[in-house]
């Protein structure tokens, strides 16, 4: 696959639905690994950085890796800023790696469920994203990639501290597991803050859509583990799973309550948002996310029929600025983006309702 193919397809986690996908958008596991005998990334020379990319490239090309998929390696400096940004918006690489234009590289599997970032904060960051609530499955996939890479590369590992990472907040298992949840019910019933503060008390952390420092647009929340040392991967994942299940129940109860007590207001809100998305000529990113969130809620509650919930998950990503520019094939000023975004949403809603009904 060429960079062009990656830029023009949507990843499996966006297209397919998974368990509990009325509320859980996706599950992601990231594991941080470093190679022994090289300085960590803050002190890495350009030539060592290139050696690491080369070692990773060879390991990824090994026949064992075929059981995971075919990987394509991209060196950051060979891509344009917009192209790198597209990979960020598809959640395949982090914003930090996109900025590491000189030394960074990454490999992506053909279905885009696995990506491996090279020379970000750590030498290697293995990331798996799967649709819906599938913590175990995502971990098994990430762990398999980890095992294969470990059989070819010497990891920095300490008997007491586990996998050594550049930042001591990741040391030990190096694992960050996140579940992305769509929680409009808890937001509308104003229970969200209470729940979020409870989450932070059990060693988990909540972030917005694009990770650390971003806010929760479109009622999307990312719940992840905070602790990486002293607990096994199984314990970390179980803890996360348990809490996510609880939030799922609360969200379902909140939706029921809204339907019972505020059905008219809720349906009005959902259909207004649908109307705007179906007819608007210009729409800003933030409004689009909010309206898409309302429509997704409408689909999940059965208020809106004939539109698949999955297409909205896809639209949430496909209307981001860099992807829009790539789809249009030219650089777009912010005003033009709003125009283009509205057009894409209209087209998708129309074709979807035509194909379903």
């Amino acid at each position: 696959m060429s960079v062009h193919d990656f830029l023009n397809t949507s990843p499996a986690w966006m297209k397919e639905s998974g368990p509990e996908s009325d509320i859980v958008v996706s599950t992601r596991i990231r594991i941080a690994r470093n190679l022994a005998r090289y300085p960590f990334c803050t002190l890495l020379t350009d030539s060592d950085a290139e050696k690491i990319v080369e070692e990773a490239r060879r390991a990824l090309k090994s026949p064992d890796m075929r059981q995971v998929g075919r990987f394509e390696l991209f060196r950051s400096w060979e891509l344009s800023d917009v192209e790198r940004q597209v990979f960020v918006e598809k959640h395949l690489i982090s914003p930090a790696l996109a900025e590491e234009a000189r030394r960074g590289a990454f490999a992506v599997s053909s279905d885009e469920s696995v990506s491996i970032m090279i020379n970000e904060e750590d030498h290697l960051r293995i990331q798996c994203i799967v649709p819906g609530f599938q913590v175990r499955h995502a971990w098994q996939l990430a762990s398999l990639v980890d095992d294969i890479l470990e059989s070819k590369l010497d990891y920095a590992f300490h008997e007491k501290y586990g996998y050594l990472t550049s930042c001591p907040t990741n040391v030990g298992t190096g694992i960050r597991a996140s579940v992305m949840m769509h929680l409009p019910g808890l937001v509308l019933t104003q229970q969200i803050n209470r729940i979020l503060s409870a989450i932070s008390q059990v060693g988990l952390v909540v972030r917005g859509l694009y990770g650390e420092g971003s806010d929760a647009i479109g009622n999307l929340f990312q719940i992840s583990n905070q602790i990486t040392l002293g607990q096994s991967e199984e314990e970390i994942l179980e803890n996360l799973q348990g809490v996510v299940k609880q939030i799922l129940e609360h969200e379902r109860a909140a939706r029921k309550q809204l339907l019972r007590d505020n059905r008219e207001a809720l349906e009005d809100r959902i259909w207004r948002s649908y109307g705007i998305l179906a007819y608007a000529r210009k729409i800003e990113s933030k409004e689009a996310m909010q309206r898409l969130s309302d429509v997704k809620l409408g689909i999940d509650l059965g208020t809106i029929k004939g539109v698949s919930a999955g297409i909205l998950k896809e639209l949430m990503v496909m209307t981001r600025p860099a992807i829009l520019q790539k789809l249009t094939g030219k650089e777009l000023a912010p005003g033009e983006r709003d125009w283009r975004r509205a057009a894409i949403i209209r087209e998708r809603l129309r074709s979807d309702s035509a194909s379903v009904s």
Partner: protein
Amino acid sequence: MKCQECGQRPATVHFTKIVQGDKSEFHLCEVCAREKGEWMSPASAGFSLNSLLSGLLNFDPPGGTAAAPPRCSTCGLTYSQFSQYGRFGCADCYKHFQSRLEPLLRKVHGSTTHAGKVPRRTGGKIKLQRELDKLRAQLQAAVQAERFEEAAELRDKIRAFEQQLGN
């Protein structure tokens, strides 16, 4: 992506500004960002995890500072550099700053000892050692509960493990 201010240089500073609930995105080059006063140097970036971490790092454990070498002899990073950036320079920093690291790890993770996965190829011995510890605990429990048949089986297993480990 080009800087939205000058339209010339590549945008390297990306941030979202929220003023009274209104959110706007900025993509600027470093020069324009500095001019607009929007650029925060990594040291003053108020909200990053690393800056929070450096807040945790700049403390001396009660009962005086443990005698830690001020510098990692492998990569040359000083402890004060580490506490400023919140990042280590190399794997050996964990050894060189161990005495200072322990209280920090306890604060961040509530623990100082890895309990998870071990690399298969390079961590074989550690894995065996862990298995051995587990078997010894099981043996203890079996003896206490007077399940002697089970205890004998466990004892044999432990012997086999000890031989593998070479003690």
